[in-house]
């Protein structure tokens, strides 16, 4: 046994190396005209009207963008108000009959991937499902201002709205790309998620789904008959690796050509810069991170919060933090301090006022005016025997928030504020958050491209207003901004609402990062759309 085992091992190793090299050579030859994108999230249900609840992931949305074309797309300015900032897709044009009626004329060249023409019947069918709260509760809520969608012939669709407002075109086109009625109208909505259409969808987009290998990758092939021009990259692989180390290893080893979310960690940046075949592309992101102040007492939700219901304390915390320093530590130069709850993807970011800089003396004055003094000399302010101690809840899954939490704790200590960090397992953190059991919640949200979404968290009756922040002036200003009734700069009513929110300080708005992508240099005409990373992939080419 001692003699033959090493020989056997050597033979086995040699055979495996030979097999391995042949498999490697075979795959290398298949790379030209293709792209492997590595990402962290497995798309599971990339079907419009079904991306609800747990299926409402960015991974699903980004894949759906390749398979299904919208009536119109957001233009480069990402302006969601008005009718002019959009790019024709399935609809070649649109006109207004009046302030509550939009008419779309479909491009007669548009075809489903099975060759059947895209017609107005498809749009009506899709909108019926999207507007049904029993099928798609989130979509139905977003589309509640659409009162009817009707077909006029095969290529004309008429959308009617309950009232005039600035984002009618956005609502009609962004949320639900049309589905093929001829394939789906016989499938009951309740069983669609389990139907064969999910694994072999037929879309109208630039790419078609070839195969899904669960938890590994999704393969797409160019739609040869795509009416807006055949994509130059023939084969797209969306490769899944949940672990950030695995993702960067795939990219740096040449097993992947592009990667999203390069940071965190920040030290991925120099690693990628060290590879001359790769380039970094920062893109505005829909993410915004903030410290949310509970307005109500978490122990007795009927009562105001004993510390944070005082606007002076909230403002003092915001003024006391050096937000530039904080975000530079975790994002480098790839983030900025937002003004209000505005991610860098929202068009109202342009022209908005700048966030206030750190002013520790001003913060101390505010705390003193609110009656918080360090009466016992222990370094922590107190009032009527109660120390100025607050708890910051954050999820253990977010390395960024953990790191920032420690730094925030350090920055608030000199002001006489004791901040206790409460790191919670993710589901527990969400549970505490939604039930209002927190002092300060370290929140991070992803926004749609429309500023109208601000009503969800920052109005008195907002569905996700877990901190119970309520200012009737903000409600009114947001309502004016959404209706788009003011004359002049369309951003101005939004800025007025943001100024009021900043003044109320319901949260300290900390960061809106840029998503950093890495792409191999041999791809040409590379453009990445904020909010939908790979939607313009059909315009890329491979110069190898």
């Amino acid at each position: 046994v001692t003699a033959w085992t090493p020989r056997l091992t050597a033979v086995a190793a040699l055979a495996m190396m030979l097999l391995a090299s042949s498999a490697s050579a075979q795959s290398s030859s298949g790379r030209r005209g293709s792209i492997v994108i590595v990402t962290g999230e497995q798309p599971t249900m990339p079907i419009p009207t079904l991306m609800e609840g747990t299926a409402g992931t960015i991974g699903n949305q980004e894949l759906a963008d390749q398979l299904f074309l919208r009536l119109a797309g957001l233009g480069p300015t990402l302006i969601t108000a008005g009718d002019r900032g959009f790019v024709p897709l399935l609809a070649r044009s649109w006109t207004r009959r009046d302030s509550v009626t939009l008419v779309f004329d479909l491009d007669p060249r548009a075809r489903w991937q099975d060759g059947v023409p895209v017609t107005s019947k498809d749009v009506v069918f899709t909108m019926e499902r999207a507007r049904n709260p029993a099928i798609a509760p989130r979509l139905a809520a977003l589309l509640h201002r659409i009162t009817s969608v009707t077909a006029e012939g095969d290529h004309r669709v008429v959308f009617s709205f309950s009232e005039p407002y600035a984002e009618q075109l956005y609502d009609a086109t962004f949320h639900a790309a049309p589905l093929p009625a001829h394939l789906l109208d016989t499938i009951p909505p309740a069983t669609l998620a389990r139907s064969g259409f999910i694994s072999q969808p037929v879309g109208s987009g630039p790419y078609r789904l070839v195969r899904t290998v669960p938890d590994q990758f999704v393969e797409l092939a160019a739609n040869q008959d795509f009416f807006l021009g055949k994509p130059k990259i023939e084969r797209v692989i969306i490769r899944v690796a949940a672990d950030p180390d695995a993702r960067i290893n795939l990219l740096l080893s040449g097993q992947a050509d592009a990667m999203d979310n390069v940071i965190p960690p920040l030290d991925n940046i120099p690693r990628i810069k060290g590879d001359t075949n790769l380039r970094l592309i920062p893109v505005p992101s829909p993410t915004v991170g903030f410290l949310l102040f509970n307005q109500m007492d978490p122990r007795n939700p009927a009562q105001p919060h004993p510390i944070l219901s005082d606007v002076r304390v909230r403002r003092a915390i915001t003024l006391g933090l050096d937000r530039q320093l904080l975000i530079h530590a975790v994002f480098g130069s790839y983030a900025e301090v937002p003004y209000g709850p505005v991610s860098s993807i929202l068009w109202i970011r342009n022209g908005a006022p700048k966030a206030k800089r750190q002013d520790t003396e001003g913060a101390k004055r505010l705390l003193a005016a609110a009656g918080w003094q360090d009466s016992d000399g222990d370094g922590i302010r107190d009032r009527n025997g109660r120390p100025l101690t607050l708890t910051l809840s954050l999820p253990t899954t977010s390395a960024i928030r953990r790191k920032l939490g420690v730094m925030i704790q350090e920055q608030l200590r000199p002001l006489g504020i004791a901040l206790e960090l409460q790191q919670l397992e993710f589901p527990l953190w969400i549970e505490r958050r939604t039930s209002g059991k927190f002092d300060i919640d370290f929140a991070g949200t992803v926004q749609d491209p429309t500023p109208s979404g601000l009503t969800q968290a920052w109005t008195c009756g907002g569905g996700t207003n877990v901190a119970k922040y309520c200012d009737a002036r903000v409600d009114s200003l947001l309502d004016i901004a959404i209706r788009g009734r003011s004359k002049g700069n369309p951003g101005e009513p939004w800025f007025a609402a943001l100024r009021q929110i900043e003044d109320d300080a319901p949260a300290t708005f900390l960061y809106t990062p840029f998503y950093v992508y890495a792409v191999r240099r041999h791809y040409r005409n590379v453009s990445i759309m904020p909010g939908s990373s790979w939607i313009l992939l059909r315009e890329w080419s491979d110069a190898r």
Partner: protein
Amino acid sequence: MSGWLVRRALQALLVLAIALTILFFLMRAAPGDPLARASENRPLSSAELATLRARYGLDQPVGRQFAAFVGGLLRGDLGVSIQYARPVTALLAERLPATLLLGGSVLLLNFTVGLWLGVRQAVRRGGLEDRSLTAISLVGYATPSFWLGLVLAWLVGVKLRLLPPAGMQDPLLDLSAGSWLKTADVLRHLVLPVLTLSVVSIAATMRYQRAAMVEVLHLPYIMTARAKGLPERTVIWHHGWRNALFPVITLFGLWLPILVTGSVFVEAVFAWPGLGSLAAAAVWGRDYPVLMGASLLVAALVVAGGFLTDVAYALLDPRVRLG
């Protein structure tokens, strides 16, 4: 023998039933919202949450949820994953092959190389080879798998580019490629995760095997075998090793469930699409149906491990009788 099998099967079912019942209620008692994942990026309103709770039966009393789970289990239906919105049986079936391949390869390597090296050490007890292997095995045993995985992926996968640093197959490999190429491709991807997991397990097996073999080699019947003029290979492998196997068989029984649960970190580092990462994500997201499915599988492996150990004892030791 058949009576013993029936008794063991009934025992196994009872153990499974008790384990699953405890798990079901413990999971529900643990804090955390199973719909947390849905609120991860875009917070859901209370109305949307209520709709989703009704869809997954989470608005029902725990007793009714348990009855529904048991009813489904009896029909072979483990429910629908909250996170993936797909049947749990399908999710488990998709990931089981990858787990069996990884775990099976580790077990195979472990119980061939580990046993062989352990026996070599015992035979050469006190020599340079024994001392060197002891030192190596101690280092291997003390090496954290996740750290070793990161180092191997970076060194072999990224710097040297000898093997792929992650995944289970090359997505660009032509669909029409022959089965040899496809097999070779999977083997290339398998090497690093297997190596990572094997270092610790082989080290442990070596230590166990060496200790057991050293003890056996001093027994009088070994001296008798040598005195009878039997070849040394027969003395060691036929007479010695067979009796030194019992501690290692126990180890095998313990290792079997770790096939599924023990490779979570390594699966993550190498993006290996196995059950470990699925179960870990289910814990993180409180995906009750997937958790119950994965727990059922692990509990079944624990029971199977015990059963196989008993059978192996009976086969190897004539003094042990099943009945």
